[in-house]
Structures are given as C-alpha cells and as structure tokens.
C-alpha cells in the first residue's frame, strides 16, 4: 500500500536531526537506568558513553551525506536544505566526533563523571545542524537559544572550580542579553517587512527605494547579536574569561564547532535575504567589525601569558579576518570565508587537543607558559607538529593557514579595499609575534626541573595526525577543498 505523509520530504531531509533527537533520548535513558541499582550507584559510564556517542555521530555523518532531497525549503519554509547546509553539517559532525574521541583521558583525570556531558554533546550536534538549515528568523532564534543554553550549562560544568562558575555565569548573562537583542531586531524587521522568512525578506527588499530607520535598527541588533555569539569585537569581552574558566574539553568544543553554524546563519542573512543592502550597510559594518577584531586580537594577545586566553584572543583575530572576507561582497569572498572557517576549525581542534594534553599533567588550575616548556624533549614529533600548526595559524606559507589568509586578501583587494588590506597585513604581522613566541618557548627555553608529559591517547593521536597531515601537506592537493568550497558557495548564491 503506498501512501505519503504531509511532511514526508521534510522528514526524509531531516533524517540526521531526527536520528540525533531520538539518540539523545536513548543516551539519557541508557545513562539513567544503568546507574540505578544500589550496587551500580557509582558506575563509571564514561568509556561506554564515549563509544556510544562516537557511533551516533558517525552514523549521523553518513545520514548527512546521503541526503536524497534536492535543494529546497522544508517545513513550511522554516528550514532549508542545500549544499551549504549539507557540507557544513558534515564538518560540524566530524568536528564533534573529534572532540568526543579525545575526551576520555581528560574526563578521567579531571573527575568529570556525569554522563549527561555526552547527552549535551549530541544535543549540540542537533542544535548546530538545525541552526545551519534555518531559513526563518524564528527558527534561527530558537536554535541559537538551544545551542547557547547547552553551552551555558557546559561552561559551568566543574562544580568545585570558581573559574568554571564565573565562566558559566558570565556567558549566561551576556549571551542571554545578546539573544534578547536578536529577538528585538527580529521583531523590528517583522514590524517593517511583515514576514520573518529569509527568502521572502530577500524578495521584499529587492528594489528598495528607502527603508524605515526601524528596519536598520532591527538589522543592526540582529547582526550584533550574531557577532556577539561569534566573539568578534566590539562584543569580544566574554571570550577570554569563558575560554579560560570552562573545562578544557568544553573550550575545545566552543572553539571549533559553533562558528561554522553561526557563520552559516550570517551568510544566509547577508547574501540571501538582505543582499540589496550590501553597499549601504553591510560592507561598512563588516569592515569596521573586522578591523576592530583584528586590532583587539593582536593587541590583547600580546600581553597574555595564559595559554587558553591567548588562544581565545587569537580566535577574535581570526573572526576579524572572516568579517573582512564577508565585507568583500563577491563570490570569492564567500569562498574565502568558508575555506578559512574549515582550516580554522581544523587548526583549532589540533591546538586545543594540545592544550587538553597539557592540562592533564598541569599543577595549577590555569595553564601558563611555564607548562609549555619541554614538550619537544619528551615528544619531538608532536612538538614539530604543533610548531607547524602555529605557523599555519600565523599565516606562514606553504601551510594551510597561509592559503586561507591569501584567499581572504585576494577577495578584499578584489573589492578595492586597499587600506583595509594593508591594516590587516600589519595586524597579522604583529599577532605573529605571540605565535612565534610560543614556538620559541617550546624549543629554546630551559627550566630547572624536568617536566613530564603523558603520552597521547589513541583517539587524540588519530585526530592529531589526520589534521596535521591535512593542514601541513595542504598544498600537495588543494583541489579537494577548493572544489568543495566552490560548490558550496555557488549553492548559496543561487
């Protein structure tokens, strides 16, 4: 008997999200009922949870790739499926798979026993997948709140640490205010346009003679809230404290995956729905934010001695580069932004795995430069890999990060922003100082005591090697990434 449901295509296109939603219930039940009997009250669930979560993420990666639905809007135009959403979802799932696989040793040594951590990781995957496919201001807000709520809880996970409580509280209060601004901006846009659907907004603003000032105010509030979540200046104040205070595995998740999803939202807003405003509003706004972020990233990073805060400020600088790529307004701009996002995600996972590895054997509650000394003597290949990764972050050829920055500069100069490009180069040079200072400390500092570093676990070693090969030997076969990024960018523009 053949029949079709009302939302049949939509359900098929949302199979990964459906699978993730059912699996969070399964994980919750599994964890709750396994530790129920009195003899099993302190069951150590983390290894079994890690394997279960890895399997779930692996299967959902396959579900994401094998999406049989053509590019169309789903669920009454609230969600959309196109190339951008499919490939960014794949990157998000693979990034979270990396985060889960490296977490076992850290969670054992820091005594993070609760199994709900993995429930939250799968929920992060679900919320980011939903956010990437969002096509309506309502669904963007709901999924952004979904993601942010999980991150607030994760940032405050360590119960006996003041840093963690501070990080969670700061992130919660500031992030909630940002979401409020998003909602206010969305309501103003609805007030002036009459619809919240991104496609309809694009059609309505196509030949705009003049907009009401409330519309501009709404747009500013909207995009400011999204830039807040990314951590670009002038909304960067929370990043350093939250990355510092949260448990290192949570900072690894913060630094790697949410930027993909929020940048997908920003790309859809800028290039699909409010494209006509580009010469009026977007290019100035993103140029200003990009330049300010680069400046903050390079100046504040110079004075930092704590590793996690250093990486936080460097991420502010990278978001500045991404904003500049957005400001250029061409297809090359989108391609450079997506490519930079991919390379940045890989590099961030690598470096935060390294910080996680340091945190296993550190004495203090925060990591400073003194913890970094001596890695090269105990694990020289890993030290070489980290040094090359830091060179990639600074933009030294022929590593992957250089090509990312090259693409951004090409698109910026292509749009004739010469002064902006010169400023970006200068801040890039200044920020290279604190990257190379790290390498100097690795190789040339001597200390009185011998230091001990634990060997890398199997999951961490697998991902470190894979990412290292991808980024360091990038120039041998760049076509795979470039062709993929071109396909995604053109899919967005159509």
């Amino acid at each position: 008997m053949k029949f079709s449901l009302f939302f049949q295509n939509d359900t098929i296109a949302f199979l990964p999200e459906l699978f993730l939603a059912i699996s969070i219930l399964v994980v919750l039940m599994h964890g709750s009922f396994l530790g129920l009997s009195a003899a099993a009250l302190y069951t150590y669930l983390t290894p079994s949870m890690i394997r279960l979560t890895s399997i779930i993420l692996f299967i959902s990666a396959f579900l994401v790739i094998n999406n049989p639905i053509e590019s169309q809007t789903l669920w009454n135009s609230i969600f959309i499926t196109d190339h951008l959403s499919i490939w960014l979802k794949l990157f998000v799932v693979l990034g979270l798979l990396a985060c889960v696989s490296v977490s076992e040793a850290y969670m054992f040594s820091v005594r993070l026993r609760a199994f709900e951590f993995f429930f939250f990781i799968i929920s992060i995957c679900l919320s980011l997948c939903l956010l990437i496919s969002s096509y309506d201001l309502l669904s963007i807000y709901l999924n952004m709140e979904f993601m942010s709520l999980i991150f607030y809880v994760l940032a405050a996970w360590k119960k006996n640490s003041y840093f963690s409580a501070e990080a969670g509280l700061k992130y919660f209060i500031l992030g909630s205010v940002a979401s409020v601004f998003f909602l206010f901006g969305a309501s103003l846009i609805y007030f002036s346009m009459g619809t919240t659907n991104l496609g309809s907004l694009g059609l309505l603003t196509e030949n705009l003679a003049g907009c009401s000032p409330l519309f501009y105010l709404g747009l500013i509030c909207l995009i400011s809230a999204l830039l807040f979540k990314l951590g670009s200046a002038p909304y960067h104040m929370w990043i350093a404290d939250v990355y510092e205070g949260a448990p290192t595995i949570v900072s690894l998740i913060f630094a790697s995956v949410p930027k993909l999803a929020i940048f997908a939202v920003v790309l859809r807003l800028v290039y699909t729905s409010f494209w006509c405003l580009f010469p009026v509003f977007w290019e100035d706004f993103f140029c200003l934010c990009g330049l300010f972020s680069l400046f903050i990233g390079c100046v504040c990073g110079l004075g930092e001695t704590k590793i996690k805060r250093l990486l936080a400020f460097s991420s502010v600088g990278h978001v500045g580069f991404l904003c500049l790529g957005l400001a250029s307004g061409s297809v090359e701009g989108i391609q450079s932004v997506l490519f930079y996002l991919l390379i940045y995600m890989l590099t961030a996972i690598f470096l935060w795995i390294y910080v996680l590895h340091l945190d296993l054997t550190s004495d203090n509650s925060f990591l400073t430069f003194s913890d970094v000394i001596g890695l090269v003597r105990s694990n020289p290949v890993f030290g070489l890999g980290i040094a090359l990764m830091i060179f990639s972050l600074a933009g030294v050829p022929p590593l992957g990060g250089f090509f990312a920055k090259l693409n951004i500069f090409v698109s910026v100069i292509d749009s004739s922003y010469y002064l902006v490009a010169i400023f970006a180069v200068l801040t890039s040079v200044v920020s290279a100082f604190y990257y190379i200072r790290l390498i100097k400390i690795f190789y040339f500092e001597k200390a009185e005591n011998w230091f001990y570093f634990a060997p890398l676990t199997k999951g961490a070693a697998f991902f470190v090697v894979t990412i290292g090969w991808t980024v360091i030997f990038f120039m041998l076969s760049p076509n795979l990434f470039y062709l993929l990024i071109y396909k995604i960018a053109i899919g967005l523009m159509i």
Partner: protein
Amino acid sequence: MVDPIIFIFLMILGAGLGVKVISTQNPVYSGLYLVLLFFLGSAISFLLGVEFMALLFLLVYAGAIAVLVLFVVMMLDVKAVESVWSSGQKRGFYISSFLFFLCLVFVGSSYDLLFLLQSGSAWIIHVLASFNLVYSEDNLKTTINVLFDGDLADFFLLCLYNDIINDSFLNNASWFVNFDSSSALNDPSYLLYSTHAILLIIAGVVLLIAMVGAISLTLQKNCPDSLHKQLGRESKNAIFMVKNKSSTNPLNLHNFKATSYK
C-alpha cells in the same frame, strides 16, 4: 478601546499594589502582592483584546517569575518584621468580615437583590463610562461596546442583559458566524500546530535540555576520589608516573617512581 476612566482606575489600583510590594516588611507578602500585580497586568491585556497575551501573562509571570521570586526568598534569609494587630483591631476585622459574608449570602440567595446588584453595577459602569446619570438601554449597550472589544463586549452584555438571548443560537439563523470565528485565543494555536509545528517540537527539546542541565549542574553525587580511580582503572592506565613535588635538587630524575595504584 478602553475608556480613560477605567484605565485610570486600574492604574491607581496597580500603583497601590506596586507600592504595597515594596513597602511591606514581609518578603513573602511582597511576592504575593507581585502576583496580584501580574493578575492586574493580565486583566489589562484582556481589556485590550489580546487574550492570548493575557493568558501568557498568567502562565509566564505568575507561573515562572513568581516562582523565581519564591526561590530567591527561600535562598536569602530575610527577617520579616511584622506589626502585630491589637485585640481591638482583630475584633473589628472579624466582625466586619462576618457581616460582609452574611451580606453576600443574603444577596446571593435572593433574586430581587441579585437583580438590584446587577442593575446597580451596570449603572455605576455606565456613569463612569459615559458621564451620564440617565440610564437607558441602548446607551448602556453602546457604552459597553465602546469600552470593551468585540467578544468581550458580547460577554458583558450576556451577563447583564437577558434579552440578548433573543439573538441566541436557537433563534438566529446565522449562528455559525458567531460560532466559528477565530479570536486572539485560537489564532496562535492554529498556526503553532500547523505551520510552525516543527518549532513547537524543537521548543520541547529545548525544555528537555534545560531540565537535564539544571539537574546535572546541581545534583550532588559525591564519589570519593579513590573509588573513582578504582572504577576507571583499565590496563592502559593501571601503571602511571607520579610527580614528586617535594624535591630540592635540580636534576631529580631519581625522584620519579613508577607506581601501581594500591
């Protein structure tokens, strides 16, 4: 829309309640006055014709935010300084409340007094609304229609007037027009369950993670450190190096020892 006199009356009531919230010495009383204030806000929303917003006021404000106030009062140890009434005041309060309830029972059980009460209250509202002491039928109808919005005006007219029954469903041929119209209450629900159904489902998942997050952050399960290390021991971490912090010589290679956990 709402007549200014009614609005001013409600605002004075609201201001009085607000002053009571902050002037009372007992924190629980001030929370209760806050709930009354929320009821007032809900009533104003009803008057404006946005019934969905009015019910949301009750659900969100009185249901969630008042409970938040309750939790804060529970956490903070605020001393309530109460002024005790004297016995004369107590006697007066009991007698006056007894008389009031006696009047209520008396009036409620007699039809003539009920009718008198109804026409008296209708006259008061009419006087306040139209500044007109003369009391005529369609005068009252027009004032009520002016005061309140469509459905709510019909509700009041139905309460106060029996001859509205002439327009009822038995005698009126086009009753389905009155029956099947959408109002501010069922319009959002039509949309929420059909067009935006997926958002409702996602909102449910958000509620789930909020609950799990609150529980996992606050529920204390104290597992001793030794038990944790025993339970998590596998073959690959059974033997590990321990850093000895109490060493004074610079090359303290021999201070490292390989231990297996006892």
